[in-house]
C-alpha cells in the first residue's frame, strides 16, 4: 500500500512486504486439474493467500483456479471453497505462493477465526467454527439517514393542497378580523326603525266605518278616506253631556244616526289602513296613517347608554336594510330616552338621516344601525391635511 496520497512527506512502500501473518497450519488443498482431483499439502496460510508444495504438478501463473482448503478440526474435515491465483512459482523448489480471489464473507470469517485462534494458541473446535459461521461477522452498510423526498406529482399535489389550505386559513383570518372589528370598533344600535312625519287619522266618534281607499293609494287634500255612521246619541251626549233620558228618548236617539266623512288633511300617501266595511269602531281608534308626499323618512335608533361616548351629532353611520343592502347616514341629533320626565334614562336615542332618502314604503320597518368608531371621513380629513389641501 502506498500512503503517499495521505501524507506526502512519508513514503511507505509495502509491495514487497508481508501484510498478513503467515501460520503453518496443517491443511490440504484439493484442486481439479484436467478433470482429476489433485492434492497439495499446505506450507503456510495467511489472510491474503497460502503457499503449497507443487510436487510433480504444475500450475500456471496468473490463472484463476478453483479449489477447496481442507482443515482438520476436532477430527472432522472442514472444507472452505476458495478461488486462487498462483503468483510466485519457485525456480529451484516446488513452492508456489497463491493469492486468494473473491473470497466470500463466510470464508473470510472462517479463515480469520482459524488464523487468530492458531496464533493465540487456542483450541479450535467445530462448535466455535459453526458459531463463527452463524454469526454476522461483517457490519452492515450504514443506513442512509436522509429521508426520501416526494416525487414531482406528489410534491405538486402537496403544494396545491397546502395553498388551498392557506386560502381557507386566510378566509378564516379575515372572518376573525371582521369579528374583532365588529367587537371593538363598531357600535351597534340595540334597536332602530324607519320613521317619518306621519299623520294619523283617527275616528272622531264611535260608529260604523267604511274605508274608501286602499293602503298605498295617493290621496289629495280633502279627498275622502272613509265614511262613518255615528248614532245620534253620541252627538247629543257630546253637546249636552249625560242627561237624564227616558227609555223612549234613548231608543229614538239610537235609531237615528249621522253620517260623516273623514277626509285627507294633506297631499298624502296612505301608509297604513285598516280596511273596513260597516264595521263598528270606537272613538279615537286609528284608521289610517298618512304620509305627506313631500315628506322624507328618517331613522330612530336606540343605543345603550354606555356607548354614548362613541356617538356624536353629525357622525356618519351605516344603515343595514333588510336584504343585505347598506346605506350611509348621519346622526342628526342625540337625546336620552327618559322614561319619566326630568329623570335620566338608560338609553340614547339618535335621529338619523339617510344620505339618500329612504323609500316611504320602509317607514315602520326595522333597520340595523352601526357606527364605526374609526371614521373614514376623519381619515379623509387627515389625508387632506397631510396633502396640504
Amino acid at each position, binding site marked *: 500500500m502506498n500512503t503517499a496520497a495521505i501524507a506526502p512527506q512519508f513514503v511507505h512502500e509495502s509491495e514487497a512486504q508481508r501484510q498478513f501473518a503467515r501460520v503453518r497450519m496443517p491443511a490440504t488443498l484439493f484442486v481439479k486439474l484436467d478433470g482429476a482431483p489433485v492434492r497439495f499439502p499446505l506450507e503456510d496460510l495467511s489472510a491474503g493467500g497460502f503457499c503449497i508444495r507443487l510436487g510433480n504438478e504444475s500450475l500456471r501463473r496468473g490463472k484463476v483456479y478453483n479449489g477447496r482448503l481442507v482443515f482438520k478440526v476436532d477430527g472432522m474435515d472442514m472444507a472452505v471453497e476458495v478461488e486462487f491465483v498462483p503468483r510466485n512459482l519457485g525456480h529451484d523448489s516446488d513452492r508456489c505462493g497463491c493469492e486468494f480471489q473473491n473470497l466470500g464473507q463466510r470464508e473470510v470469517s472462517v479463515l480469520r477465526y482459524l488464523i487468530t485462534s492458531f496464533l493465540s494458541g487456542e483450541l479450535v473446535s467445530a462448535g466455535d467454527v459453526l458459531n463463527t459461521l452463524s454469526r454476522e461477522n461483517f457490519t452492515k452498510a*450504514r443506513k442512509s439517514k436522509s*429521508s426520501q423526498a416526494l416525487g414531482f406529482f406528489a410534491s405538486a399535489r402537496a403544494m396545491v393542497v397546502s395553498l388551498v389550505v392557506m386560502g381557507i386559513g386566510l378566509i378564516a383570518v379575515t372572518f376573525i378580523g371582521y369579528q374583532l372589528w365588529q*367587537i371593538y370598533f363598531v357600535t351597534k344600535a340595540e334597536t332602530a326603525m324607519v320613521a317619518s312625519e306621519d299623520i294619523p287619522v283617527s275616528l272622531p266618534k264611535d260608529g260604523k266605518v267604511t274605508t274608501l281607499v286602499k293602503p298605498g293609494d295617493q290621496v289629495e287634500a280633502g279627498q275622502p278616506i272613509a265614511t262613518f255612521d255615528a248614532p245620534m246619541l253620541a252627538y247629543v251626549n257630546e253637546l249636552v253631556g249625560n242627561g237624564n233620558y227616558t227609555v223612549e228618548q234613548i231608543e229614538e236617539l239610537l235609531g237615528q244616526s249621522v253620517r260623516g266623512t273623514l277626509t285627507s288633511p294633506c297631499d298624502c300617501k296612505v301608509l297604513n289602513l285598516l280596511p273596513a266595511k260597516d264595521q263598528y269602531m270606537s272613538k279615537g281608534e286609528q284608521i289610517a296613517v298618512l304620509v305627506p308626499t313631500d315628506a322624507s323618512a328618517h331613522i330612530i335608533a336606540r343605543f345603550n347608554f354606555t356607548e354614548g361616548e362613541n356617538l356624536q351629532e353629525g357622525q356618519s353611520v351605516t344603515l343595514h336594510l333588510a336584504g343585505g343592502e347598506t346605506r350611509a347616514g348621519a346622526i342628526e341629533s342625540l337625546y336620552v330616552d327618559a322614561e319619566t320626565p326630568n329623570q335620566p334614562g338608560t338609553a340614547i336615542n339618535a335621529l338619523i338621516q339617510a344620505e339618500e332618502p329612504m323609500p316611504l314604503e320602509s317607514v315602520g320597518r326595522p333597520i340595523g344601525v352601526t357606527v364605526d368608531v374609526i371614521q373614514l371621513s376623519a381619515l379623509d380629513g387627515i389625508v387632506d391635511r397631510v396633502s396640504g389641501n
Partner: protein
Amino acid sequence: MSMIPDNPFSRAGGWCLYLAALGSLAVALPREFIVPGGAHFILLIGGIGLWRYSVGITHFVRGMYFLHHAYPILRHKARKLGDEGAPSHVFLMVTSFRIDAATTAQVYKSIIREAIDCGWPTTVVASIVELSDEMLMRSLWRKLNPPERVQLNLVRIPGTGKRDGLAYGFRAISRAIPDDNAIVAVVDGDTVLDPGVVRKTAPYFKLMPRVGALTTNEFCEVKGSYLMSEWHKLRFAQRHINMCSMGLSRRVLTLTGRMSVFRASVVTRPEFISDVEYDSLKHWRLGQFRFLTGDDKSSWYSMMRLGYDTFYVPDASIHTVEHPPDPSFIRSARQLMFRWYGNNLRQNSRATKLGPGRLGWFTWYVLWDQRISMWTSILGLTAAIVAAIKYSGVILIAYLLWIGLTRLVLSAMLVATGHPVGPAYPLILYFNQIFGSLMKIYVFFRLDRQSWTRQKTSYSTDSASFQQRMNRWSSRIMTFSASSVFLATVMFIV
C-alpha cells in the same frame, strides 16, 4: 421551585392555598349574571365538555374495574398455574448508552439480581456501546456471582441509536434459538427493576396465549425541581389509569421502552426486528422519513400488525430515573412533549388504519380521540376568552372557577391509582391540557421533525433541500390555517 420542601405541612399549606384561590375566584363572581348573546354556545360547549369528561370517566371506570376486579381474577389464575406458568428461558435485555454511571450500575445490579432471584434459566443480554459500561457489567457480574443457570451475553454495538441497539440484541437472542415458552424483558438503561418483576409477569404469557407482550407499572425518581418531579409523577399516575383501561381490552397502547416483556418467539421474528430497526412513515406532504425515537411505538405497531394482544400488569413495577433535559420546567416540558407527542402522532395515523376489526372499536376510537383531543382540550379556554372579549370578563372568571373545581375532582380521582397526589396537581393537570394541546397541534404539522436531530439550518439547492424548504413552509401554512379556522369557528359559535 426547588426551594419548596416536600413534607405533609407544605402539602397541606399548598392545598389550603389552592382552595383559597378558588374561593377568591368564587367571591369575585357577581351575584347575578345574565349570559349575553344567548345560551346556544353554552349548550354546545357544554355538550363537548360532557363528551370529553365522559371519555375520561370511561377510562377511569374501566381502569378501576380492571384494577380491582378483572386483574385480581387473572392474577389468581396465574398463581394457580404454579410451575406450569414458568417460562423455559428468560432473557433480560438491557440497552444503555452514556447514561450516568451511578444509574447504570443501579440498573445492571437490579437486572443481575432479578436474574438470580427469578429462579429460572436466564440470560442477561447487554447491548452496550461503551467499553466503560462493559467493564461495569463485568465487575458487577463478578461481584454478584450468579449461579450456573444465569448467563451473560454482551453485545457491543456502534453508537448508532437505540433502535440498532435493540435490533442487535434481538438478533443475539435469536441465535440462542429460544423456544416458544421463552420470554424477553427489554429494559432501558435508566430503569431499575423492582424485585420480583419477572416472576410477576412471566405467567401471563402462559395464561393468555394471544398476548405477545406486556408492560408494567412505573414509578419515577426525578433528578430535577419540585415542579418537574410532580409533573413526572402526575404523568405516571395518569398513565397507570390509561394503561389499566386499555389493559382491560388487551390493547395496551404502548409497550414502554422502559421495560416491556415480550414473547421470545415474537422478538426473534425477522419482521419484528426489522420493524424496530428501521421504521418509516410516508406522509402525503412531508415525504418519507425515518422514525428516530419512539422504538416503543414501532414495537407496538409491529405487535398489532402481527396479530398479538398486549397486556398490562399493574402490580409489577419498575423505577425509572428521570433526568430532565433542561433545568427550566417549561423548556423541559416543551422538549419532552415534543418527543412524546411526536412519537404518538407519527404512530397514530397508521395505527388507525389497522381498523376496528384488528384493534377493537374502543381502541380504535381511543386512537381517533388522540387526534381530536388536541382541539377539544383548548376549546373551552378559547371560547371563554372569546366570550370575555365579546361580552364580559365575568365569563372568564366563571370559567376559571369551573376549571379549578373540576381539576380538583380529577386530582382526587388520581388518588385511586395509588400514586401520590400533591397540591400542584390541579395546576399541572391544566397546564398539561393547554400546553400539551398547543404542542400537539404544533407537532401534528411537523411530524418529520424529531427532537434529537436538529434540522439542517443551511440549505443547498438540490431536491432534498427543496423538500425541506417546502416542508417548512407548508408546515407553517398548515398550522396557521388550522389554528385560524379553529379560532374562526369558536368566534362564530360564541
